[in-house]
């Protein structure tokens, strides 16, 4: 049986994901991920084919570390995000790239704004999702954020979730 996914459903899914992040509803955001999910942000000088096992990324989380990232971000001692920044994730150019038996590959473009302490930083890039339906509901098995930037200058950190 082929995996079923419409553009409407894909768009609604990634827009809802963005809203959870901007509302700082991180538990709801984490619920969108499958049990064995990965979340990757490669360094900006790497090819898109680079793997985290033998290249230095900015972020290469498995499900365990993704949960810990969310746990951390909810604490007052996550100093970079306490008090919390304001963010807005704009997601566009959503396309279904590939549909296999058990998953779909969806790509999108993003511009994320983070404001704190008188400064607004912008993160620009593309996202590649591998979506699955382990128990019927759509889940993220992989989320890759490829930054279209030459480094994190002046942003300095990815303390928020992209």
């Amino acid at each position, binding site marked *: 049986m082929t995996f079923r996914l419409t553009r409407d459903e894909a768009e609604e899914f990634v827009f809802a994901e963005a809203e959870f992040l901007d509302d700082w509803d991180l538990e709801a955001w984490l619920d969108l991920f499958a049990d064995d999910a990965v979340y990757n942000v490669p360094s900006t000088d790497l090819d898109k084919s680079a793997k985290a096992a*033998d290249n*230095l990324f900015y972020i290469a989380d498995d499900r365990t*570390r993704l949960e810990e990232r969310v*746990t951390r971000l909810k604490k007052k001692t996550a100093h970079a995000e306490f008090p919390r920044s304001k963010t807005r994730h704009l997601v566009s150019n959503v396309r279904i790239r590939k549909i296999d038996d058990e998953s779909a590959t969806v790509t999108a473009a993003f511009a994320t704004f983070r404001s704190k302490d008188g400064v607004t930083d912008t993160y620009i890039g593309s996202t590649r999702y591998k979506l699955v339906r382990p128990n019927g509901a759509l889940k993220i098995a992989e989320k890759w954020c490829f930054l279209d930037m030459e480094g*994190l200058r002046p942003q300095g*950190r990815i303390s928020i979730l992209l």
Partner: protein
Amino acid sequence: MSGTNGAYVRIDEDLKTFKVSRRAFVDPAVTDAEYREIFDKCWLYLGHESELDQPNDFLTRTVARRNILFARQADGEFRAYLNTCPHRGASVCRERSGSAKSFQCMYHGWVFGNDGRLKHLPGEDSYGENFRESGGGDLTPVPKLDNCAGFWFVCFDPDGPSLDDYLGAAMPYIELLSLHSKHGMEIVGGTQEYAIRSNWKLLTENSVDGYHAESTHATYLDYLMNVSGGLIKQPLVGRAFDLGNGHAVLEYKAPWGRTIAQWIPMWGEEVKAQLEDVKAELVERLGPDKADRIAHYNRNLLIFPNLIVNDIMAITVRTYYPDAPDFMNVNAWALAPRREVDWARQYRLYNFLEFLGPGGFATPDDVEAMEKCQMGYRNLKEARWNDISKGIGKAEPSFDDEAQMRAFWTEWQSRISRADGFGLAA
């Protein structure tokens, strides 16, 4: 007040205090003086030999505001040039890295070999007879280029000391980094390039600060405790060493895993056996003392003024320069043993990202701390001094004292006081 009173550093022997003027972090004249007296005179890190693995490999990099072309000739020799055409000044190489026997300036088409010689120029017959042969059209090499155990440095002061003399007592620590594997070491693919909205010296301090972990990195330590088997029962304990010339190192034991070669339960029994083999190889090759230091001790190494090599849960190589008093650009890499087995490389990088870098569980909080210090210095007129007194007067300062920062500031003060107008009180 008794003791040494420099313009920016004040030591009071009676009160046992070491104070640094916050003007050193905010004054553009200080940043200018730092370029003149420090960055234009000290040996500065350029890159690791593994980044130019083969003859004809090259990379371009900014060092102390200069564009540098770092290249290997066909015979394997390492060379470094100022990346500017002798004709009108355009960058002759506009790529980050690659392999090339020659570089052609895009402006008028002058071609340079990776030996720096001008090989060809369009319309050569319109120039004087020996224009090319005379060497006047060759690329300008950096004044001094040398390496220590595969770490390449440049010095823009032709009259500066040799690299060996400059590094002095820090050399054995750089050499120790090259001994983790009999196959040598390499920079892993991928560079973390970021910026911090603070003075660059805050990162020097932060990179060798053993005092801040419990507070700044509470969530990182929570995380290691949450993850089953993420730590062993090894308290943080160790020493700080002033290595002279502004260099310093912390050497200490810590509870986290090291793929060379401190096992943690999370990695499982199979890895435990393999790490014992890694340790045994170190003992056989280097003797028990060096092997123990490599396997079980962490080192935060500061090479004055702005090279940090932290051999902790992974190895990071980090260098940074001020664009302005309140803004720095940082480049950071991961260093690892060559031919490292897959699981070790994977765990090493997992460890790295857990703590280090702009997306880690720790570095963003360091960045936050540094930026908030910089904000605090807006109160300079009323609140003038930083305190760097912890452990002052101790014969054997602990890793979480501040002797290593005093080593840095003492050298910094000595160099900056040579700049015009900087010998006076702040």
